[in-house]
């Protein structure tokens, strides 16, 4: 059973868990391995949504975050679009595990998004404007 999902949510972190649960349910239905279902997919998608809400839309509840996901037994592709100017994906290369940063409260989101996916892409939405982050997770 392949799946597709399109949702829009206000810029409020309270909506994240529901969206993640829907995507994980689709992944479970097509037979994703347990580790992807229990850790990689929910954490990576959560981080993308937090970035869109916090940094893309600056917690402005009047702005929306749009989510599009395509799921089949081979892969998950999720696009998270906000209304902002984007953020520096290179920050993901900043290692949060160094002695100087390991006790920081923040700075692990992009790191985990990269660690738990096979590809992270960022581009501008040509129609709606705004920033889009696309995550790809392969099953193999």
């Amino acid at each position, binding site marked *: 059973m392949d799946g597709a999902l399109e949702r829009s949510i206000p810029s409020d972190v309270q909506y994240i868990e529901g969206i993640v649960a829907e995507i994980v349910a689709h992944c479970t239905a097509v037979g994703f391995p347990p580790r992807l279902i229990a850790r990689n997919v929910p*954490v990576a998608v959560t*981080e993308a949504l937090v970035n869109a809400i916090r940094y893309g839309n600056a917690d402005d509840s009047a702005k929306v975050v749009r989510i599009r996901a395509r799921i089949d037994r081979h892969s998950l592709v999720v696009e998270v679009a906000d209304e902002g100017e984007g953020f520096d994906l290179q920050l993901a290369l900043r290692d949060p595990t160094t002695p100087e940063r390991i006790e*920081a*409260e923040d700075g692990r989101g992009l790191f985990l998004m990269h660690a738990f996916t096979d590809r992270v892409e960022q581009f501008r939405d040509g129609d709606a404007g705004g920033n889009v982050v696309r995550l790809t997770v392969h099953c193999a």
Partner: protein
Amino acid sequence: MSFRTVRHQDVVIVEVDGQLIVSNRQELKQLILDEVAAGTRKVLIDFARAGYIDSSGLGVLVSLAKRLREEDGELRLANLNDDLRSLFELTKLDTLFRIGDTRERGLDQF
């Protein structure tokens, strides 16, 4: 998702049921800060019934560990499943916390 507090001698044990993520991290933080304000210096968080933890959840654990250290206390963790343990290893946060395989081991010599 919820947090439940139980006491074992002078240790406050917080059981996490469900995810520890951006939407509920503040609840956990305030719960433990209230315990610290009331004099608690030893806290064990039990993840036996936990789901996934995001970067915000990890961040609040780091913050609470520092707060307890400032008060000459300690935050310990217990019952991380394989997925959670590998998350702590990936972020090297396993070096910041004493992590018990079981609640009893987490309480050992606390």
